[in-house]
């Protein structure tokens, strides 16, 4: 049936694949065929027959709140068709219950370099380590991710694969969703419900449905750098750049982030071109688009810090033993040279695109019309006593006034100001100040009458008080009702925002009681954990509650959308 060249490809594929991969392929092709026949689902209302399943579990591991929001939506939908859906936060899920599950829907997002959200980490480790069988289980996985990242929806993929390996039956194919996930997710869940209401119990192959790339996807803006200034004074241990970008028609809301793909350092790109004796202008194809060798290395490919999986792939390419480590492409090429530069195309095949970086926007469209500001800490670290900078923060730190920059707006609907008359408590040490500069500027510009309380901290008052004069002006004009500061290294004992929070515990609790929303932005660990512990302590002390009641109180705040985090 197949011609010789196609047959050869199939044979190559089959011989080079492991059993697990072949099983996957089998499912994949079946799924494709199903897709070709047309996957349009009949409207749900039309299939209102008596459900054959009356209980399901919808588990979610949430980072930004998106998974949880979907879980609630799904549960509501399920109830409408008479299926009792139990929501389970993977953070609190009893792992032993897994074996008892019959119908299990998991919503899993992917973060950073293919990682599951922190809340799902225990669950993730459990299904990877545990040899137990999940014979009763029928499952479906909805994976949330961002196509800008190399390992799109990786965590969801792994959960799907792992549950299958443990013997669970796939109800529906894995659905991968991009940042505008809502419509795809709903359609998928409608499919799940259809399966459940007509359940036959037969396994569904592992068809992966990926949201089609929409032409309306992320809008890329071309901006111009208006200003870039290091906010830290001489003598500081830190460098925090305040960068102002002008971009016509840019649309965003306070709380959103700016996404930018950093370019690679010029000297590294040139060194690779020289080493491989490449023609810088020769065109190559990478993931369906054509680029010159130079542009590819400068703007598209991650070359600064290769992940282990790329290093492993490279090891097979050059048939050498290479220790599993993270390394730059240039070093890799120097130590384990390519056999000849013709292999460059194969090299491109295993390299990954540079992941975009997100920075909380520190401006407000109301206060800084036509501009986007970001607040970027230059990431410094030392490798073998040599000072190194993070790729993107260094890329941004070197911005010059007038320079062109491409970026997109990453919506963060989970981190929004409340109604104008509501009070807010903002806890944002270090670069965590960014969205709060946006919030305060916004409320200042719109003349909202809710009260604003800022907790800020850093190392030293003299050198590290980010946006000090602006904050002083806001206090002066009353736009900032209260401010508390924690400079950790200005005295012998370290003082952090959580200490200041506890010091003002009574008042914090009063604000919470009268409906204030708490926002936390900055490092996830240890800051956001310490802050949450401090909040729990405050609620216990000033609300006269037991520990469990305090946690309950916090959970209520979360579910009311009054305790929001943007942490990294």
């Amino acid at each position: 049936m197949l011609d010789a060249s196609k047959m050869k490809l199939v044979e190559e594929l089959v011989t080079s694949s492991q059993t697990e991969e072949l099983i996957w392929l089998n499912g994949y092709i079946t799924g494709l065929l199903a897709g070709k026949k047309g996957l349009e689902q009949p409207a749900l209302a039309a299939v209102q027959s008596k459900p054959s399943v009356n209980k399901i579990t919808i588990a979610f591991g949430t980072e930004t709140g998106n998974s949880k929001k979907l879980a609630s939506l799904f549960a509501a939908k399920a109830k409408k068709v008479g299926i009792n859906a139990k929501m389970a936060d993977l953070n609190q899920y009893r792992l032993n219950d897994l074996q008892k599950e019959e119908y299990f829907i998991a919503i899993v997002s992917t973060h950073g370099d293919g990682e599951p959200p922190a809340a799902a980490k225990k669950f993730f480790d459990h299904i990877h380590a545990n040899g137990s069988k999940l014979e009763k289980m029928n499952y479906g996985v909805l994976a949330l991710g961002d196509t800008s990242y190399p390992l799109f929806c990786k965590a969801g993929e792994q959960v799907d694969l792992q549950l299958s390996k443990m013997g669970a039956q796939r109800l529906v194919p894995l659905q991968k969703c991009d940042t505008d996930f809502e419509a795809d997710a709903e359609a998928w869940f409608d499919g799940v419900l259809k399966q459940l209401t007509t359940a036959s119990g037969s396994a569904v192959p592992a068809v992966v449905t990926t949201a089609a790339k929409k032409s309306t996807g992320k809008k890329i803006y071309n901006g111009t750098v208006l200003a870039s200034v290091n906010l830290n004074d001489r003598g500081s241990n830190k460098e925090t750049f305040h960068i102002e970008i002008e971009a016509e028609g840019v649309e965003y809301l306070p709380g959103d982030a700016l996404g930018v793909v950093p370019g690679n350092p010029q000297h590294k790109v040139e060194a690779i071109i020289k080493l491989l004796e490449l023609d810088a202008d020769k065109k190559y194809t990478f993931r369906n688009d054509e680029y010159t060798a130079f542009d590819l290395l400068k703007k598209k490919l991650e070359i600064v810090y290769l992940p282990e999986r790329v290093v492993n792939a490279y090891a097979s390419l050059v048939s050498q033993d290479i220790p599993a480590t993270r390394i730059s492409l240039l070093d890799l090429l120097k130590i384990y040279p390519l056999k000849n530069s013709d292999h460059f195309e194969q090299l491109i095949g295993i390299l990954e695109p540079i992941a975009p970086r997100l920075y909380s926007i520190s401006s407000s469209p109301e206060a800084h019309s036509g501009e986007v500001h970001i607040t970027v800490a230059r990431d410094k670290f030392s490798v073998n006593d040599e000072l190194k900078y993070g790729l993107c923060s260094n890329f941004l730190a070197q911005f010059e006034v007038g320079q062109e920059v491409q970026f997109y707006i990453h919506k963060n609907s989970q981190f929004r100001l409340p109604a104008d008359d509501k009070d807010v408590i903002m806890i944002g040490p270090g670069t965590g100040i960014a969205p709060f500069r946006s919030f305060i500027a916004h409320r200042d510009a719109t003349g909202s009458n809710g009260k604003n309380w800022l907790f800020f901290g850093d190392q030293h008052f003299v050198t590290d008080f980010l946006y000090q004069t602006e904050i002083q002006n806001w206090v002066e004009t009353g736009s900032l009702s209260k401010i508390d500061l924690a400079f950790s290294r200005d005295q012998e004992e370290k003082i952090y925002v959580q200490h200041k929070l506890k010091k003002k515990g009574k008042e914090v609790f009063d604000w919470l009681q009268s409906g204030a929303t708490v926002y936390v932005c900055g490092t996830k660990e240890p800051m956001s954990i310490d802050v949450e512990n401090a909040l729990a302590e405050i609620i216990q002390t000033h609300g006269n509650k037991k520990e469990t009641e305090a946690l309950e109180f916090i959970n209520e705040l979360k579910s009311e959308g009054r305790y929001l985090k943007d942490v990294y």
Partner: protein
Amino acid sequence: MSDTNQNLSSVERIKIASNGLRGTIKESVADELTGSIPEEDANLFKFHGMYQQDDRDRREERAQKKLERLYSFMIRLRLPGGFMTPEQWLATHDIAGKNSTGVIKITTRQTIQLHGLLKRKIKPTIQAFNLAKLDSIATCGDVNRNVICAAHPKLSPVHAQIFAYADKISEALKPKTRAYYEIWLDEEKLSEKTEEDPLYQARYLPRKFKIGIGIPPNNDVDVLINDLALIAIVENDELKGFNIAVGGGLSSTHGNPEHYSRLATVLGFTDTEEKTMKVIYEVLTVQRDFGDRSDRKKARVKYTIDRLGADVFKKEVEKRVGFQLEEARPFEFNDRKDLYGWEQNHEGLWYYTVFLENGRVLDHEDVKLKTAFYEIAKTGKANFRFTCNQNLILSDIADKDKKKIETILKKYGVIDHTNNASPVRKNSIACVALNTCPLALAEAQRYLPSLISKIEPLLEKYGLQDEEIIIRMTGCPNGCGRSSNSEIGFIGTALGHYNLHIGGDHLGLRLNRKFKENLNEEAILKELDFLFGEFKDKRKAGESFGDFSNRLFSELAVQDEPILQ
């Protein structure tokens, strides 16, 4: 009592409303949002011995970084007569290292200043000083400031007796408010009522008040530049009493002839301690009641005495003390300098005067002044005295300990440093000026050393390198560096530009006059080249540069040009 007090200046209102110099200092210090304090409290801060300053070099850059000015505070100690025990020096050394820039600055009023104190370091600093029995009460502000006294015990066998007056005067004229103790030392407030202060009342003095005690024949303290000068009259090694002079002060304003430098006018003589102390007290009350409280630029006692007339002023004092001043006794000054190197007093105790350029104690590459003094203080064998020329005297050293002290001085290069400095450098003074003084128009202490390095070869060119010419520089016309009564005075007009004054006498008894204005360095050196040449050719035998240039002044008939804006 005075008819000039119709429109009180804003500082007057702040003082009266301050509840005994308390104001809202506690709250302002606790405010974490800013490193500064509001103006009202900044005015009161001075009475507690501190000035709010900011690094003027850094203003622009910090504004770009959205950071406020780099505020800090200067704290000035109350050290009557400029004396410290070795324990107190050790404490000061540690405090300076921990809380301020590390540099210990000896001032022209015999005390110590630490700069660069951040707001949150103030309280720990004052508490640490307090443990060492040191305070900063009334070292700035409209009160009697640190009382100065001829520094070197070798100057007179009755030096100790005269020196004791500095402390007595300081105590007698200290404000009665407990504000300092409450705010900085957590003393409990005993009553809601503000303390009665019969001397200062609620309004304090119209302006600062400086008292100096001189012991002829050395005028090392520049006694007549004080608001109140006491000139010790010693006969046959016995203290007979003091001539009392009122109305000195060196500040002036560019372009305003109504603001001028003035030397104190001798009013009379008192013999007993009781009488002397009474007169001192009542000079202050007369100034309190008659001084100008509407224009701070005309509020010093020098203007009061000129307005009232010296006779009227004297009569008012006599009325208040209830006796008449005796006729002033004759006295003579024949020098104005520090006695560098080793000296021995009448009791056989040893003294080593160290040359400190502009009073700055710090470790340099080759001269480790700060380390040397620290080591010496640790031996406990020497007291520390400070001179009005911003030098330091290691004092009261027993014969048996002299070697030990000398070994340390040698080890850290202090002796070579003192010996090798040229006479002109040793006789120079510069005020602080940029980058911290808010009044400065031009550099002073950061610039004078390098200018002197360029003046030295000029002097050598004319064989004048051994002349003890007194050169002083101030960054503005307010006179902290006492340039008005130097032989060569520089007064800053703008960055890099100075008025050149000459004609002051060597003894500090005649003020200098403006010779050329607004000179840059090149012009300064050209003028000095000319003046030194004339001096070499035309001086009379034994004539000082000051006297010569005064004569030359008249001969050249320099036109008194209008002063710059």
